C-alpha cells in the first residue's frame, strides 16, 4: 500500500521538478487542486571510499529540499518530509543558516585525506541569523537551549564564555547578499560526547526514520566502534534553479565514519556492508527521489587493486576536493540492484596492497609546549605541500579566558623567516565573560611549514568554578583553518547542475581553486588545581589546635584548685571509728 502511494507522490515530485527546470511559473495540476502540490524532495546517498591504510570511510548524506517561506507571518503548519522540530526552530529564532555537528575522534588528514564534510572533535554550532533579529545574543542563548533538548546534548553549556563572533571566517554557505558578521555566532564544546542518545533523535529527523533506505545501516554498536564518527545537521537556503530568483530551504544530515581494519578484528583486508554496519540494504526509502550508493574506484580502474561484488555497470565521475574521482554507482531505487536475494551486501576484496595516497595539499597540527603549571606556549603548524603555488589561509583561534594569551609574543614564521599576516583581528578576553578571538589571514609559501606561536599564562580559577573532575584537564577548542586550495582539475562553478550530494556542499566561485576547511586537534591543558580536601583538613587541624591550646589555657585560668585529702584506707577508717567512740582525735 505504501509503495503505491509513494509512487504517486514521486511522479508528482518529478513532474514538478521538470516543470521548474523548464522555467514555467504555474504549478502543474497533475494532482487535483484540493491537495497542495508537494514542493519537497528527499535524496539519500552513501559514499564509500577505501583508504590506503586499510581502513574504510563511509559518508552518508540525506538531503531534504523544501520550497517554503519560514519567515512569513502565518506559521507553516503542514510538514511532510521536512522535520517539524527543525522547521519550528527556524521560524521561531529567525535562523538564516544553522550548522551543528557532533564528532567523536579526530580526523587524521595525513592518513585519510580530506573529508567530504569537515568537523572538529566534540560539538560545534554556528548560526547565521536573519537581519530582523534585534538581540542576537539572547536569541542565541535560547536557540542553544532548544537544540540541547532536540539532540539530547548538553548544548546549554554554550554561553558567552565560549561563543565568539568571527569577523572573516564562516561566511554563509547558503544564499544571501548581505554578510554582516554581527549576525554570526560560533561556539564549540570540545568535551561533548557523542553516543546513541544523540544518534536516536538524529535518526528520527529523517523522513523514513531508520526503517527503510540507507538509514537501516545506522546501528549504534558498529558506528561507535570506529576511529571517527561524526554526525551533523546543516540547514541553509539554496537556489531552486539556475536563475536563482527563488530559494528553497535545504536540510542536509550527514554522517561520516571511518572503520578501522584491525579494531574490527579482521586479518584479511576485506570489507562488506555487513562487516561495517552489521546490516544489509533491502530497499530504498520510498519517499526518496534518489537513493544511491557510490564506491570510489579511482585507484582501481582495471580492477587490479580490489574487486567489487556484486558488479555494477553504472559509473559516474565527479570533481570533488580538487580531484576528478570515478565512482561505481548502485541505484537502490531499481529492483535489479538487489538481485534475487533481495538484499544488497556489497563486498570489496583486496588483491594487492600497492598504491600511494595523494598527499593532501593543506594540513595542520597544534600542540602545547612548555612545562609546569604556570606558563605555556601554543604552537600551530600549517603545512603547504604544493610544490610551487602559495595560497592564503584564514586561521581562527578561540581560546578560553583562563589561558591568558600574551599577544605581544605572537609570531608567525615560514621557512625560518617572519611572515606578516595581511589581516589580523584580535578580541581580548574578559575574565569569566568572553574568550580570546584571534583571526589571521596568512599567505602560505609553497612547500613550507608555517608556525604560529603564542605564549600564555594559566589562571587560577575560583574553587566553585572547577568541574567535578578537574584533574582531567581543560579543553581548548580546535583552531579552524579556512583556505582556497589550488585544484588540479577545473572545479564546476554552476551550482544547479545535477551532481552527487557529496560534491555540492561548498559552493564554488572559481574553477582554479576549491574551498576547504580543516580543524586542528583540540588541546588539553592542566590548570593549577587546589587540593579540594584542604578545607576539611584545615577545619580539623584548626579545631584540634583550638581545643588543645585554648582549652588548656582556659582551664588554667578559670578553674580554682583545692587541696583534697586523699581517701584513707580501710584499716585507718576502722581505727578512726574506734577512736571517735573512745573520744580521741582521729588519725
Amino acid at each position: 500500500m505504501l509503495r503505491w502511494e509513494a509512487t504517486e507522490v514521486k511522479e508528482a515530485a518529478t513532474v514538478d521538478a521538470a516543470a521548474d527546470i523548464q522555467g514555467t511559473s504555474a504549478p502543474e495540476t497533475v494532482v487535483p487542486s484540493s491537495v497542495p502540490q508537494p514542493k519537497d524532495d528527499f535524496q539519500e546517498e552513501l559514499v564509500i571510499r577505501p583508504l590506503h591504510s586499510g581502513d574504510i570511510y563511509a559518508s552518508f548524506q540525506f538531503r531534504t529540499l523544501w520550497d517554503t517561506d519560514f519567515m512569513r507571518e502565518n506559521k507553516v503548519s503542514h510538514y511532510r518530509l521536512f522535520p517539524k522540530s527543525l522547521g519550528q526552530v527556524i521560524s521561531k529564532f529567525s535562523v538564516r543558516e544553522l550548522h551543528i555537528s557532533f564528532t567523536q575522534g579526530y580526523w587524521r588528514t595525513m592518513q585519510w585525506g580530506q573529508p567530504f564534510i569537515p568537523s572538529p572533535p566534540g560539538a560545534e554550532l554556528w548560526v547565521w541569523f536573519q537581519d530582523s533579529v534585534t538581540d542576537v545574543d539572547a536569541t542565541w542563548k535560547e536557540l542553544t537551549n532548544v537544540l540541547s533538548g532536540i539532540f539530547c546534548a548538553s548544548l546549554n553549556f554554550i554561553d558567552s564564555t565560549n561563543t565568539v563572533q568571527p569577523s572573516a571566517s564562516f561566511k554563509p554557505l547558503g544564499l544571501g547578499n548581505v554578510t554582516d558578521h554581527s549576525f554570526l555566532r560560533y561556539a564549540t564544546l570540545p568535551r561533548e560526547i557523542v553516543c546513541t542518545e544523540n544518534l536516536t533523535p538524529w535518526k528520527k529527523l529523517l523522513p523514513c526514520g531508520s526503517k527503510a533506505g540507507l538509514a537501516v545501516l545506522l546501528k549504534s554498536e558498529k558506528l561507535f566502534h570506529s576511529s571517527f564518527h561524526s554526525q551533523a545537521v546543516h540547514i541553509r537556503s539554496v537556489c531552486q534553479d539556475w536563475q536563482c530568483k527563488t530559494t528553497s530551504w535545504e536540510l542536509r544530515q550527514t554522517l561520516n565514519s571511518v572503520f578501522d581494519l584491525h579494531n574490527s578484528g579482521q586479518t584479511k583486508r576485506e570489507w562488506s556492508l555487513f562487516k561495517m554496519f552489521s546490516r544489509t540494504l533491502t530497499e530504498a526509502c520510498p519517499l526518496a527521489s534518489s537513493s544511491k550508493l557510490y564506491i570510489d574506484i579511482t585507484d582501481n580502474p582495471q580492477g587490479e587493486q580490489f574487486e567489487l561484488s556484486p558488479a555494477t555497470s553504472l559509473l559516474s565521475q565527479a570533481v570533488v576536493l580538487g580531484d576528478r574521482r570515478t565512482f561505481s554507482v548502485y541505484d537502490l531505487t531499481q529492483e535489479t540492484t538487489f538481485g534475487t536475494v533481495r538484499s544488497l551486501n556489497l563486498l570489496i576484496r583486496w588483491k594487492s596492497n600497492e598504491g600511494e595516497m595523494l598527499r593532501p595539499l593543506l594540513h595542520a597540527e597544534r600542540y602545547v609546549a612548555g612545562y609546569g603549571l604556570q606558563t605555556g606556549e601554543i604552537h600551530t603548524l600549517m603545512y603547504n605541500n604544493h610544490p610551487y603555488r602559495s595560497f592564503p589561509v584564514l586561521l581562527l583561534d578561540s581560546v578560553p579566558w583562563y589561558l591568558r594569551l600574551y599577544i605581544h609574543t605572537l609570531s608567525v614564521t615560514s621557512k625560518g623567516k617572519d611572515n606578516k599576516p595581511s589581516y589580523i583581528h584580535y578580541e581580548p578576553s574578559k575574565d569569566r565573560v568572553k574568550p580570546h578571538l584571534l583571526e589571521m589571514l596568512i599567505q602560505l609559501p609553497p612547500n613550507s611549514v608555517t608556525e604560529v606561536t603564542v605564549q600564555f599564562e594559566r589562571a587560577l580559577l575560583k574553587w566553585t568554578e572547577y568541574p567535578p573532575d578537574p584533574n582531567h584537564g581543560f579543553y581548548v577548542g580546535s583552531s579552524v583553518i579556512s583556505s582556497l586550495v589550488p585544484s588540479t582539475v577545473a572545479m564546476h562553478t554552476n551550482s544547479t547542475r545535477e551532481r552527487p550530494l557529496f560534491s555540492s556542499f561548498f559552493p564554488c566561485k572559481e574553477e582554479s581553486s576549491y574551498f576547504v576547511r580543516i580543524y586542528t586537534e583540540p588541546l588539553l591543558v592542566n590548570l593549577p588545581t587546589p587540593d579540594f580536601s584542604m578545607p576539611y583538613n584545615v577545619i580539623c587541624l584548626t579545631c584540634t589546635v583550638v581545643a588543645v591550646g585554648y582549652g588548656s589555657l582556659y582551664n588554667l585560668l578559670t578553674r580554682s584548685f583545692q587541696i583534697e585529702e586523699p581517701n584513707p584506707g580501710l584499716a585507718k577508717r576502722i581505727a578512726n571509728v574506734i577512736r571517735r567512740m573512745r573520744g580521741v582525735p582521729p588519725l
Partner: protein
Amino acid sequence: MLCYTSLDILDIQWIWQFFSSGHTNNWAVLVCTSRFWFNYRHVANTLSVYRSVKRLGIPDSHIVLMLADDMACNHRNPKPATVFSHKNMELNVYGDDVEVDYRGYEVTVENFLRVLTGRLPPSTPRSKRLLSDDRSNILIYLTGHGGNGFLKFQDSEEISNVELADAFEQMWQKRRYNELLFIIDTCQGASMYERFYSPNIMALASSQVGEDSLSHQPDLAIGVHLMDRYTFYMLEFLEDIHPASKTNMNDLFKVCPKSQCVSTPGHRTDLFLRDPGSVLITDFFGSVRKVELTMDAINLTDPIKQMEEDPVNGEEQKEVYSYADQLPVSEIIHQKPKQKDWHPPDGFILGLWTLILLVFFKTYGIKHLKHIF
C-alpha cells in the same frame, strides 16, 4: 441515570474502583549521580530501571533520565554503545533507542531540585522538564554513593535528606503529584526517606542506616562491577511484570531479602493513604492510561484555511540571489582600515614648552631667565 440501573453489582464496583485510583498519567525521574568508570554499576542500575519503565509503557517524553557520566561511549568500554547488566554480556540495557535528558556535568543538585519543583529557566526544552500535574504518579529512582542523611552528586556536592523532603513538600503544595514512589539504592539509603513529611509518598531503600549496599557481580571482560544487588534483583522481578499484571507493592517490598542482598532493604508507607496491597506495580512503573468518557458535545474551531500558494512570480522578483564568496581575500584585507600610529599634531611639543615657559616667567618675573640659560 437510567444507564446505571441496567448494570449489575460487579460493574458498579469496577466503576467505583476506576474513579478511586486517581492518577491519569505517569512520570519517571531516574537519576544516576556518580561519575568515573568504576561507578559503571550505577549507570547500569539507572538504565535497567529506564528499560523496565519504557517496556511497561511510559514514553520518553514522560521520563527524565539523568546520567552523570557516559559509560557506553567511554573509551574504556571494550564494547562501545553498550551497557550490560548481566555478566557475559547477556543483557544490553542501553539499547538502541535511548534519550538521556541530563548528562555529564548537568547532573547537579540544583538541576535535580529544579526539575522536581518545576522552577526551570523559561528556555528549558520540554524534554528536560517534569510537566506533572495533580493526577500524575511519579517514580523517582536515585542511585549513587550515599551516607547517613546525604547522597553524593558527582564527587563534588551532596543533597541532604532534609532538602529532598522539602522539595517533595514543595511538589505537594504545588500539586505536582498525585502519588510518589521513591526508590533509592545507595549505602544507608533508608536515611534519605526518614525526613519525608508530605502525604502520598511511598519509599523503598536498599539498606538501613549503618549498612552498606553491595554490588552484585563483576564482568572480567569489562573489568568493573556491573550492577548493585538490590537493583539486580529488582530488575529480575520487573522483567516478569507486563502491562496487565496485577502484582502489588507488597511483592516489591519482598524483593531482595537479606540472604540475597546482604543488606536489609527497607520501606516506608506511613505517609501513603492507600493500602500498599491495593497499589499495583504498574501504577508507578507502567503507563496504564485511563480513559474518561464524556457525553458533552464539543464545538470544533474554524477549519484551518489552506494558505493559497502564491504563484511562482519569477517575473516580479527582481532580486537575484547568489552564494557568498567563502574566502574573499581582498575584501578581508581591506575590511579593517590600517591602523596608523597616532602622532600629535606638528609643533605641539614646541608650543607646549613655550606655554610653560611663558607662564613661569609671568608668575615669577624675568630675572629668573638667567638661571635657565
